[in-house]
């Protein structure tokens, strides 16, 4: 772990130097390198591994270029050898066909491993939380089928518990991205797709739509609040008691293009998520049914 931490820190420093950064004390701002959950941690490890692997090729290329251009200049008395007909070397060519193949094989192996791993819940648990996410013009709606509450432009999750986000859109395609918790997935009309995320610690995590969806797209920001399970339960109770219900009319109002702040609802029409997907072509997609099945 310490060795790993060292490598991680060196890579970060290289990235910082590389960018000529001096201000912002930005370490905590570099969200991708501040994983706050098992999913983003898997992704960060793969990213760091890929940086190291590509460095094996990039650094020699730049050093070789520097050496060659310095040595073989066309100046009068240049003592370096000049062999205008030398143009083949099986040994050299084998080296640079071979090394990239090995690098791709190594990176490819871990890529495939992680790609499959990320389709499963981060931990084996019997009761993951399910949240239904809908991207609208230009806001995010979150429905909690287990709790029957709904929110707009923020969502509350219990820390240390896998969360199954089921994603769709009732507007042009968008993408659901909470960098500190894990990479993104598209939200698309007529589709229900699954994204597993989990937060290790309580905290507020930045989220944003990542696929352009029109004029208000830049304002599609939401926060993910991770809290202790007890606080989460208290939050649900609080919402049930104080927030207004989301009516069908209220939902249609949300679907209309607008930019809004955060909202909370004590209940919502129970079938709107499923109905919306079916209406927009979900009936043709068999796998929607299996994902929706786990969502109820």
């Amino acid at each position, binding site marked *: 772990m310490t060795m790993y931490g060292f490598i991680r820190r060196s890579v970060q420093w290289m990235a910082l130097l590389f960018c000529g950064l001096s201000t912002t004390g930005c370490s905590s701002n570099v969200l991708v390198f501040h994983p706050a959950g098992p999913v983003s941690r898997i992704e*960060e490890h793969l*990213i760091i591994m890929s940086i190291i692997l590509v460095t094996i090729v990039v650094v020699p290329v730049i050093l070789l270029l520097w050496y060659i251009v310095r040595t073989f200049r066309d100046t009068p008395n240049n003592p370096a050898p000049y062999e205008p007909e030398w143009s083949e070397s099986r040994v050299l060519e084998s080296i640079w066909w071979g090394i*990239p193949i090995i690098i791709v094989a190594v990176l490819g192996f871990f890529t495939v491993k992680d790609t499959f791993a990320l389709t499963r819940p981060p931990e084996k648990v019997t009761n993951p939380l399910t949240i239904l996410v809908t991207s609208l013009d230009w806001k995010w709606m979150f429905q909690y089928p287990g709790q029957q509450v709904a929110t707009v432009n923020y969502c509350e999750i219990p820390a240390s518990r896998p969360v199954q986000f089921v994603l769709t859109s009732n507007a042009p395609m968008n993408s659901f991205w909470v960098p500190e918790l894990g990479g993104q997935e598209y939200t698309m009309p007529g589709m229900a797709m699954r994204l597993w995320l989990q937060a290790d610690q309580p905290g507020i995590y930045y989220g*944003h739509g990542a696929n352009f969806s029109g004029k208000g797209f830049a304002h599609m920001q939401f926060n993910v609040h991770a809290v202790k399970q007890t606080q989460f339960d208290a939050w649900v109770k609080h919402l049930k008691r104080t927030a207004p219900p989301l009516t069908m009319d209220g939902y249609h109002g949300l679907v209309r293009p607008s930019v809004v702040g955060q909202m909370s609802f004590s209940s919502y029409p129970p079938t709107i998520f499923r109905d919306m997907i079916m209406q927009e072509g979900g009936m043709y997609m068999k796998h929607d049914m299996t994902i929706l099945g786990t969502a109820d």
Partner: protein
Amino acid sequence: MPGYDRHHPTPFFVSGDPMIYASDVLIALTLVGVVFVLTYFRRWRWLWEEWITTVDHKKIGIMYLLAALAMMFRGGVDSELMRTQLAFPNNHFLGAEHYDQIFTTHGTIMILFMAMPLIFAMMNIAVPLQIGARDVAFPYLNAISFWLFFFGAMLFNLSFVIGGSPDAGWVSYPPLTETPFDPGPGENFYLLALQISGIGSIATGINFLVTILKMRAPGMTLMRMPLFPWSVLSASVLIIFAFPALTIALALLLLDRLAGAHFFTMLQGGNPMMYVNLFWVWGHPEVYIVVLPAFGIFSEVFATFSRKRVFGYTSMVASLMTIAVISYFVWAHHFFTMGAGPGVNSFFAIASMCVGIPTGVKVFNWLFTMFKGRIRTSLPMLWAIGFIPNFAIGGATGIMLAAAPGDYQYHNSYFLIAHFHQVLIGGVVYGMLAGMYYWWPKMFGFILDERIGRWAFWLFNIGFYVCFMPQYQLGFMGMTRRVYIYPADMGWSTLNLISTVGAYLMGIAFVLIVVEILYSAVWGVRDTTGDPWDGRTLEWSLPSPAPHYNFAHVPVVTERDAWWGQKEARKKGEIQKETRPFQPIHMPRNSGRPFIMSLCFFIGGFGLVFEWYPLALVGLVGILTSLLMRSVERDTDYYIPVEEIQHIESNLGRA
């Protein structure tokens, strides 16, 4: 927050923005200026006879080059406006709508109306000369290709002042681009302009494939062919197989918009994901269509300016062809996040990484072309050397993006923006500028000024890193693309400001290149030998500029680097003087019809944009009439008599 309404009425002339009014005035003044100059100097006939009706590949190449530079200016202004808006958090230089239009036109213009014509320029200028041909296989079709591109580009740019620009990104994904979300004509401009210029691109692909396969000089086997024609061969194959997918995607989306079809709609069973697939089935090979010819140019430049054979020629050919094939199996890496299963994502991840292998091999072969050579850092070589570290980093971040789980974090972030600008600018633009400096004397007979050129190179090269390196970091910090505004508390402000400074440096470099061209036209060193760089390939055996028939005698090729070989033999006193008598040369006649037919495409396209079907019909009738007239035309070619050849060659001091 302001209220957002989806349906806004769009006036015919774009109005309401002082910047657009200013541009209107500038456009009008420029047009008046051009008309005045042409009339005052009595150049209308010259313009028509020498340029508009020409079927000469060299002139068509020059027109492609000038059009591409003009489009680089337009796309470049777009990028400067965007970077100005993003220089500070919560900036209000541009509004959301305006910004959305600008990033859409920037991307579309830079790929389709800047990079594409720039590679076509280089192909036209160099390929026939390098393979010892007198023109391309289908010169008339070549003129049609150019004018279709030209009018497609004009139609697209027209949206700026008439009707409003498209604003859904250069990828134009439905359902955002369907009429309920995007009712204005802007998106129609996009669809029709790309469709019209796309026809021209497919024709160019066919033209150069046939030219390279069938028109090589005697003795020039494929494995004796210079690497630039090889790269064009592979790019042509890519064009022929990739562009039809774009044609289909655009046509179906147009049907959705104009005829109420439901191919990609949200409701009634449409499937937007199909568009995304079709778009990238074209879109990824497209990246290689523009970068492979750049690879070809680098191979020529590294060999020439190292006075050495290109290293690993066979590997270079093999890697070009391997890249061309693999590039068809990577398109889904543009949407790893669209929810395909892990099996699909794994396949496309591995395939995408595999493209890096032959590309890496090429980089090492270029390095070892210089190794044990004699390197001159003239301007073409400077851009080629600048390309290597740039492309190495761009390629490396490409491998990082190919690792699908990593991509879940990079997708649509500024990391991605930095990556593809690094490969497209570092690869394509550097390559084309190297090619432009390299072949400029062959096109115009003078060399571009070295001193201004060095300033331009260093400003551009430094500006590039200042602009795009911070964007990698911005991606890691969570900044997504296509946001017109960002808050101050994310820590993105400094890096964005640095990036904007870099963009300005690149802008200054572009202005310097224009100054350099104008300066050199008057004061530049004239190329009297036809071989200013001590070249290796056949184009340097000709005078600069080459006569319209290119080769008075079709050369007979006995080895790779044919011209270098001749020069070496001549040094040893081995070569015989040319003893073959001149023969009449068979040439195609000029024709105004490619221009007129493409103008009809423009008229018809404009009619469809506004759904003015009578006007569209007028365009269609014009197109069909042009095609019919060509079919019954007999007088399409002529012979240059021996006396005229003799006269021209002796004036050039070559007979």
